[in-house]
């Protein structure tokens, strides 16, 4: 259902019973040892994958249980909304499943509270099986160790509407390649369409600053740094776009869904997406599909942005060997590859991206998008710092909005955002 529902989890989180479930760095007990016999009942929790991939996971589990007859896996899947609330209740209440689907920003607080197993200790031998960048994405500045197996990766191209480009006097076959091109094209689009067609639909997020080449944190990982000259430059450009309506006037309240819809209906000329979206265009906006242009993400760094999913092992599990074995089983090359064939995601295992599936054209757009994405993933970066919490994201979003509305200068806005984020970081 809709955006809303992370309902009233409120204040509420208010009370976790004292110490009953928390406490950091509790490395006691022999449970860190993953070398025993793989047996026992474990629970595996995924994040909104049941609706579309039920047979895949059932087969996967059957395969594991066949391989290790003493082990039994119970699969639970949680809906998209409210996942962090569900995790925090379970973490606080001591009911976290044994193997959990996480993203880097979710694993960071769990690791700091000592609830995530350090795989550098428990499963170091598997490290070489994954892409180095993917393995590193679940490491946390200020702590040593790696706290989740990398699972699937995602990245995608930039889609643009060739018809709108043509109408604005832009060459539909020469999409912008650099930020300078992008800003110039966007201004022209707004001018030619009388402000009716915007080129961008979203305000800049932390990963946009990263892609623009802004250093997000200081070298030690102890403070944020995106308020430097380069950051201010990016926000100043966005302010210009916003004033010219080249950035959609409703960008301040946009969600990924709403901006996707705007692209679909031709109110916005460019939108980031993934291979998954092509099918959606084909079905819901055949007119757009005929005119769809596909180009690479624009970066100043040469590294595209990627999203990483991980699989974490609960450090309190009673069956460490089984949990570690299963987490690895889910994320090994063979199973990631078969998952990738089902849906437009990419494996994080070493060598998988060289599979013909990711290198050989077959003339369709889907394949072209897939191949380009796989290529860009080889040196892609997860720009969003793992320590950048939801509260920090909201603070940045609100300060950026104030700058765009002209209530603050870009410099003031970013200074404020960095100050808030640093304060939250220190308290964390």
């Amino acid at each position, binding site marked *: *259902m809709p955006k809303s529902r992370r309902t009233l989890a*409120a204040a*509420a989180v*208010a009370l976790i019973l004292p110490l009953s479930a928390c406490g950091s760095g509790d490395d006691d007990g022999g449970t860190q040892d993953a070398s025993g016999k793989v047996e026992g009942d474990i629970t595996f929790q995924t994040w909104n994958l049941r609706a579309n991939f039920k047979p895949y996971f059932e087969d996967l589990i059957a395969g594991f249980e066949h391989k290790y007859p003493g082990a039994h896996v119970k699969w639970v899947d949680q809906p998209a909304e409210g996942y962090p609330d569900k*995790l925090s209740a379970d973490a606080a209440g001591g009911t976290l499943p044994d193997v959990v689907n996480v993203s880097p920003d979710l694993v960071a607080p769990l690791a700091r509270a000592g609830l995530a197993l350090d795989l550098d200790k428990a499963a170091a031998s598997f490290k070489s099986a994954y892409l180095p960048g993917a393995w590193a994405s679940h490491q946390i500045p200020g702590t040593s160790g790696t706290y989740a197996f990398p699972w699937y990766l995602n990245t995608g191209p930039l889609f643009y509407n060739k018809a709108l480009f043509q109408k604005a006097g832009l060459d539909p076959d020469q999409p912008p390649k650099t930020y300078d091109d992008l800003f110039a094209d966007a201004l022209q689009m707004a001018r030619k369409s009388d402000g009716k067609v915007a080129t961008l639909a979203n305000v800049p997020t932390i990963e946009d600053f990263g892609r623009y080449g802004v250093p997000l944190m200081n070298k030690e990982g102890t403070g944020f740094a995106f308020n430097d000259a380069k950051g201010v430059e990016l926000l100043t450009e966005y302010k210009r776009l916003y004033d010219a309506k080249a950035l959609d006037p409703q960008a301040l309240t946009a969600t990924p869904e709403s901006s996707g819809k705007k692209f679909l209906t031709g109110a916005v000329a460019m939108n980031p997406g993934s291979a998954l979206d092509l099918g959606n265009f084909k079905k819901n906006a055949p007119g757009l599909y005929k005119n769809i242009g596909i180009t690479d993400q624009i970066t100043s760094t040469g590294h595209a942005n990627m999203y990483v999913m991980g699989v974490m092992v609960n450090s309190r599990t009673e069956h460490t060997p089984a949990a570690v074995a299963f987490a690895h089983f889910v994320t090994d090359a063979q199973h990631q590859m078969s998952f990738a064939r089902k849906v437009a995601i990419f494996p994080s295992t070493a060598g998988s991206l060289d599979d013909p599936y990711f290198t050989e054209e077959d003339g369709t757009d889907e394949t072209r998008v897939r191949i380009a994405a796989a290529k860009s993933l080889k040196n892609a970066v997860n720009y969003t710092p793992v320590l950048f919490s939801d509260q920090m994201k909201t603070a940045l979003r609100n300060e950026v909005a104030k700058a765009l509305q002209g209530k603050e200068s870009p410099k003031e806005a970013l200074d404020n955002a960095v100050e808030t984020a640093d304060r939250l970081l220190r308290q*964390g």
Partner: protein
Amino acid sequence: MATPLRIKRQRLFSPWLFAAPGLLVTGTFVLYPFVSTLVNSLTDRRTLLPGHFVGLANFRELLHDDMFWTGLRNSSLYVLGVVPALVVLPLLLALLVQKNIPGITFFRSAFYTPVVASIVVVGLIWVWLLDERGLVNSLLETVGIGRVGFLSDQWLLLLSAMAVTVWKGLGYYMIIYLAALANVPRELHEAAAVDGAGPVRRFLSVTVPAVRSTMVLVAALSSVAAFKVFSEVYLMAGPSGGPAGEDTTLVMLVQRTGTGLTGRVGYASALSVVVFAVTVVLMLLVLRADRREET
């Protein structure tokens, strides 16, 4: 009031047996957690990390938190915007459906439908209706007014959320008024009609005084609910509270600061305590105003 029901033996345990289940559930699942919130408000506890006693530091921090003042402003505006509408409109609606004309039962039930639907469903319906390309804007465009950014402008967003609150509350308070109107002696109306008072005069001089205590009750209930508003604004303005967070309400701020794996439980608890204190004061104010008028 004198009561004849006194038998010593019964008095000893029966009443407690009657009240026990209710007390047990309320105590375990409402009051005990709330007491923990009070305790937590004096600590710097985080979702996954135990806290230390910090005295009133959280409350001091509140005073310097711009978002707190934004939230206080919006929650207060919400009370001012919603309460008068919810005191008056349902009364008018009750007068409209009071008369026993054919088909009226259907209308009464139909007017109650928005109360029955969950707030999430209601939020979804209205987000879709007020969407930039939704029904309301299609209609506005058809009649030549043009599209309005109900869900993108700071003030329009807050107003739209208030409208939804009123829309959902109409039927609920209508029923309360209906019951109260049933107790208004008709002689009063007839006497006023004989005096030549028009409908408006009759409304002001007969109906309003007769249901005044119910109006106070409605004011009390709706102001407490309005000050604690969360869902309507959260659903329509989004989790970050509209453009630049300017539509954030206090309870939204509680939710935002306190939840998730990095939630600041201590600070959010302090916010909850403030919300609780303000609602108690609101309740007392309304009741006090009532008492003063009576004397």
